[in-house]
């Protein structure tokens, strides 16, 4: 008798199936006090407020050019190459930068070795959705170019659009359920990496990125 069969048999023998009522249903709006009560343009502001409270760096860019100059500003304090997710929309915005700068590299034309990625100044990705209530971003491995790009470099920059902002987690997850994509890994990111293991003192950049930035491109 396998371990699986033994375990399942013991569980079934307990006869607990009828012991609980049906699953309750609820909506985030009725559970969460901080549910954004505003219309969609203000979701930007709600997101920005929550995101900055987490020490995230938030910027709005009215044009691709503005986004580019903001990017250059963000990376100037760091040393090393800037690695970019090879996404169509990102290419449209960043091609002028990539063409003129030695620093910017699209990941499909760059070393996949973790040791090389370790030397990067920043990783730039898109996001699947942003959550206004919590100031979070959700990325998946098949859209953010794998698992490492958004976590190895010390600065993670996300380019996003206002339409990607949802009010609460519930809406974000239901968006995921509607698709049927083969992603192996997804992560809900809420601020830069942090720890309080040393006397409850908050320190940023424990193992993941020390800096997390969002550029909301409104053009």
């Amino acid at each position, binding site marked *: 008798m396998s*371990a699986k069969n033994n*375990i*399942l048999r*013991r*569980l079934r023998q*307990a006869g*607990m*199936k009828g*012991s*609980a*009522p*049906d699953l*309750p249903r*609820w909506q*985030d709006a*009725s*559970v*969460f*006090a*901080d549910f954004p009560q505003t219309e969609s343009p203000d979701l930007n502001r709600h997101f920005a407020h*929550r995101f900055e409270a987490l020490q995230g760096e938030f910027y709005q860019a009215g044009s691709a050019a503005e986004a580019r100059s903001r990017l250059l500003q963000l990376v100037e304090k760091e040393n090393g190459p800037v690695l970019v997710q090879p996404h169509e929309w990102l290419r449209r915005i960043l091609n002028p930068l990539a063409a003129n700068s030695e620093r910017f590299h699209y*990941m499909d034309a760059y070393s*996949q070795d*973790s040791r090389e990625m*370790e030397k990067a100044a920043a990783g730039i990705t898109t996001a699947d959705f942003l959550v206004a209530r*919590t100031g979070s971003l959700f990325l998946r*491995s*098949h859209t953010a170019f*794998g*698992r*490492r790009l958004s*976590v*190895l470099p010390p600065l993670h920059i996300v380019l996003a659009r206002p339409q990607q902002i949802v009010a*609460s*987690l*519930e809406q974000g*997850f239901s968006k995921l*359920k509607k698709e049927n994509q083969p992603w*192996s*890994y*997804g*992560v*809900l990111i*809420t*601020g830069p*990496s*942090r*720890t*309080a*293991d*040393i*006397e*409850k*003192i908050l*320190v940023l*950049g*424990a*193992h*993941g*990125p020390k800096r997390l930035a969002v550029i909301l491109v409104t053009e």
Partner: protein
Amino acid sequence: MSPFATFWRKGNSSSSGEHRSFLRRAELRAHDDTHRHKILKAITSYEQAVGTMKHSQFRHWQQARHLAAQVKAYALAHLPDLLETFEKIISARGATVLWAETAEEAREHIRRIVRSQNARKVVKSKSMTTEEIGLNEMLQAEKVEVWESDLGELIVQIAGEKPYHIVTPAMHKSKADIAKLFHEKLGAPYTENAEALTMVARRHLRKAYITADIGITGANFIIAEEGAIVMTENEGNGRLTMACPPVHVVIVGIEKVIPRLEHLSLFLPLLATSGTGQQLTCYNSIVRGPRSPAEPDGPETMIVILLDNGRSRLYGDPEFHQSLRCIRCGACLNACPVYRTIGGHAYGTTYQGPIGAVISPHLWGMEKWSHLSFASSLCGACTDVCPVEIDLHHLLLKNRRRAVQAAKTGKGWKFGFRLWAFIMRSRRLVHLAHHLGRSLQWLRRVLPRDQAAHIPDLARQTFAEWWKQHERQK
């Protein structure tokens, strides 16, 4: 040791070795002011954050915990079916699911994986199940280097200690303690600056992620209908452990199931609020399998080990079944006056605090561990804070009843209680006992001073006598 503790120990039949060591450690810690100060500082800061967050995030905290309790109750009621659903869906994506009835079976699974991979180096994120099965000791016996990546776990690993708390393993260490540890064991320059110390750990672990053969994590949730596991953390060491090494092993208790992805919209905020007073923990990773063909990185192999180790026994017990709802947030530890006084190491078990006291006898033997259920004032603070409404303090009481029923209670203990019951039934005998006690209370002086202090003066009159006298005066 106080006279009451001695009497209690003699009466409580499970005076196992564990029990004696527990009392000894508890006594030491209770008198250690430095230690108590550190714990109080940590817990005060926790309480402020949690209190604020419960109000600011939730309309009605009671409503939120009730919903969570209902979801967990449903998941448990349907556990066997949900576990099979999980296995089916995640296996279809290329993950391997293994089942382990005991800690030894789980260790054997991992031993086989290590040998088949010729692994020399393992990086792991914080996981109480790995503590539970004694993973690190087994890996060391296999001559495998183990790198604990969570900062708190790294600290206790370097110090050669066990985790102090299920959520914040190094809560008992001050900055100075950690500075000394890192200086002596990692060769870092001595500094008490928290940021500098964190950076030492960051640099120390960087190459571990990149060169490890296997990454081992636990999981906070199993999402049955999604075929996924969820891992919650603040630091990012878990993400790196699941991103870089070619093999990802997850070891997770079978009770961690929740039915659907959308339930995370309640459970992630709930866990973060109860666990650390955050709105959401920094990184909540959802893993649905090894890397898929179109992805540029990620482990090629993913193995999930579903751990029973006594949980199915708890499951079949109608009274204790609800204890499996636990999401391991640590709130009951922080609320408990006993935990606050003696700290995590005194317990001597993997799971400390109220939840540890409730489940340890069922996982590892009633005779060996029931004493923890007796070491409680039954104040109920634990039940009050539990985000999934586990009736913890009543379960402690039920453990006590079972321990007494199962064990050969001392004849002296039984006689003593019968005598007490006999006296208590008669007012005259109570008065007699009271005044007899008063006339003999000078005998306290034969005891050492700090023990004599435990025994208060008896009042000049019993309450009934005092009342009668004052009624007359009216």
